[in-house]
């Protein structure tokens, strides 16, 4: 496991973030009425990153984490804007609302989750990264295990800890 924060890859991260936003609107433009599939987009971004990552000597796990991290940022930024708008009156529903809603159904307010994850990263960046990969990257336990080079059992146990800690940290809001 590596402790590098992907956000420190200034260039690739910014690139991933931009790519995600572009893809998100493109997908939705094509598929009006459908729920956005954020994990699909993460994977697509990952594939592009992985391609260019070879030139930059990025590990594939890092590419994947980058993509997941970028997804998290896109969703959190959108949630933050939405929260601000809510206070200002009725907002028209925009495409990313669906994705944010899908994530919030499975966790809690994304801004709160984001802050909790940042806190977690200060003392256990590995666990924060695991949550990024699983939740925002859409990786299964098995894929995560492979990416991190540990056994599934380890991922499973860490996942229990991650969920318990987040539930504890987010209190009553967590579903």
């Amino acid at each position, binding site marked *: 496991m590596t402790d590098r924060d992907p956000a420190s890859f200034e260039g690739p991260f910014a690139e991933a973030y931009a790519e995600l936003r572009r893809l998100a609107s493109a997908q939705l433009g094509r598929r009006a009425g459908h729920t956005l599939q954020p994990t699909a987009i993460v994977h697509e971004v990952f594939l592009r990153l992985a391609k260019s990552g070879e030139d930059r000597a990025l590990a594939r796990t890092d590419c994947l984490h980058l993509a997941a991290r970028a997804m998290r940022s896109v969703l959190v930024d959108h949630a933050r804007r939405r929260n601000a708008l809510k206070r200002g009156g009725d907002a028209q529903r925009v495409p990313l609302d669906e994705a944010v809603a899908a994530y919030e159904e499975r966790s809690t307010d994304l801004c709160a989750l984001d802050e909790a994850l940042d806190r977690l990263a200060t003392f256990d960046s590995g666990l924060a990264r695991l949550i990024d990969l699983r939740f925002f990257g859409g990786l299964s336990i*098995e894929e995560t295990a492979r990416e991190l080079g540990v056994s599934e059992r380890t991922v499973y146990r860490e996942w229990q800890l991650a969920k318990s800690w987040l539930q504890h940290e987010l209190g009553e809001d967590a579903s």
Partner: protein
Amino acid sequence: MTPEQWQRVRELFHAALEQPPEARLAFVAGQEEDDDLRRLVRELLREEPGSERFLEPPTPPELLSEPIQFRSGSWLIGRRLGAYRVEAEVATGGMGTVFRAVRADGAYEQEVAIKLIRPELASPLLRDRFLAERQALAQLQHPYITRLLDGATTADGLPYFVMELVEGRPITRYCEEKDLSRRERIDLFRRVCEAVQHAHQSLVLHRDLKPSNILVTEDGTPKLLDFGISKLIQEPMDGEPDTQAPTLIGAMTPEYASPEQRRRERVTTASDLYSLGVVLHEILTGRRPDQPIVAPEHELRGDLALVVSKALHEEPERRYASVEQLRLDLGSAVDGLPVLASPDSLPYRAKRFLARHRIGVSALALVILSLAAGIVGLAVGIAEADRERLRAERRALEAEDARRDAKTQAEAAAAAREEALDRERVAQLQAKRAERILGLLSDLLLAGDPLGAPEPDLTVLEALDRASSRLENGELAEDPPSEAVLRSTLGLAYFGLGAYERAEGHLRAALETQRGTAPPDVLATTLNNLAGALYQRGELEESRDLLDEGITVAADLPSKLADLKNTQVQILRALSRFEEAEELQRQVLETFDTSSSDDATGWLSYRQNLAQILQELGRPKEAREMFESILAEARELEPRQPLLEASLLTNLSGTLVEPSDAEESLQQALDIYRAHLRPDHPYIAHVRNNLASQALRRGDFTLAREGFEEARALFEKAYGEEHPSVALVLNNLGQVARQTGDPETARELYRRALDIRRATLPDDHPSIEESELQLGLVCEAVGDDETAVSLLESWLRRGRQASSLPSSLGIGVRATLARAYSRTGRKPTAEGIYKSAIAEAEEKLPPGHLLHRSLLEELLRLYEDWPRPEEAALIRERLER
């Protein structure tokens, strides 16, 4: 929190998770650790387990329907694996990556495919399993199945398989790109079936059949990949955590998995058959059954639709029995021959209906349904038999050909000729047989137009009789299986008409032929139907034996078991063993498959039985609520089930307190029955009897007597004179006579009822006790004291009255008995009985009860007659107090 503190939290948390759930908190409390840390860990443990969805990523994307694949083996290219050199990557799938490789040891030039299993699917046991399975897989030699050549592990422990290299494309793509006709697609698919059947006969299941495992080479030869491999990795592995399971399912392709595979239940040949069905659907219509219609003109119709849906049946036991059967039936469907997959719902539902012995369809509809079932059954049985025989004949011919050492070409020509001849002969045989059956049944079919208004049922009964007499004349004697099917059909038809004796005759004959030869579901159905007919005829002992036999036969057939148990419930009720009946009925309901949509009626009927049992157990309030809720649901059924509604109304009436409510409910039921049943149907008799009972409750003796008489005539016609229902109505008539001051007639009626009950019911049946009591009481009233003494003594000896009946009845019975003793001169016995009755009255009845007083008066008379003046004086004194 510092990383160091957190590290301790993490360790304690994981250590606690190793403990059994109930011991975790105590475990944490027992550790030497900082209080705040321990509190945090305890709180974390209490958070567990969260909601299932918490932090689970949203559904995997549909635009990437394959799980995302990370290339994990490109480093292998150019390297050597065993005797092979890896040349290029060919494909990546759920199970791993496939490479093209060549033999590198120079022994000979051979290209192979190497499949590298995904690391997370690998296990140290895989190699062992492979070795164990290799024997079976090596035997799997078929031109359409890719050979498995070897299996080993790479230097760093990743398992791989070496297989014959196939250059082909998935069957779906092949069909599209070659623009095959429907006929060509079916022919291709039938060859796939041959390969799967071959594997099944070698006891190898595929478990993951899907287009990407069914390749077709450029010259049109199908090649199946990965036979037997999925078993190696899909079985749960020892020592793996539970999270392994979703992984394995992830490796499979859920779109082609059978329902039982998705539920992770036992996988059988029927599961492979299901997956084949999905593939067949896809190559014929361009979509899987779970996808929206893409090309309406390609949607399946007629026999082909039946064949595919039989392969895709939710219940494995209702799919084709084998892949071979599917292959044959597909052939029949394209050749326009009758298919095995005859309408799934119609006969099945008809059989279920009838087997359940609940009323639910009008008599005519029932006859027609059961005939449809019979004819379909015949077609299945006959087609099978004919195919078997022709196959045997052909083998014989082939053997002869071989012996004559004919040239290969001549053999091929002969085989082709035979094949053509076979088809012709099958067609002829079937036509002949169908003609004969139709001849036999034409009377029936002419008796009513299935779509028109019901003809009078009498015609149907007569038509059934005509068909029966033709059978009795031996018209099908040379073909026992067909005769058995037809007899069981006629038996059911009679059953539905309430003609139980005739039903019994046919069902017995059918059973005799089917025992030992028919498949278990057919045999179980006949056993259940015969048991039902015998139950109706009051032959409970034999009925029970048949049901036990049926339950052994149908051990693996859940729906048959439910039917059989349901009949057992009826028998337990007839034996007044209501607690057992309740338990069994609840069992049946628990295992009832409510998901099968065509069975709403069955579900309601089973619940109705339970409500009846509750009523019989003396829980009328529960029973009434249940009847009312079932009735409400029944009225929502589409199409309406008037007879079910009528039977619910009848039962409901028994739980209603107000006679007028009960009568209204019964009247509604009677109207429905009269509109839908022949006028002498036994159900009408039951309702008439119940209506008359209500009239008796109100004291309208004329109306009551009329109703009972009518019911008696109907019962006797339907069941004969010796039947518990006849006894019941005779008893009721006895009550009318008794209450209208005609104890002589009452005695005759009660006597007859008791005789019938003793002849048809088990010795300890409560109805017998009831009869003994009534007859005993009325005998005393008409002065037949000896009979009264023996009946009442016997009733008292049973001791039942002590617990379940009001004590006044027991006391009253003893008073009557004492009177009979005293009149026959056995004064001391009478005195003893009076005294104990008086003591009990003083203990259990309210002070000043009439019965107490009349007991004292009778005892006084006894003493005065004896004469015992001293005792008489004492009693007189007590009376004056």
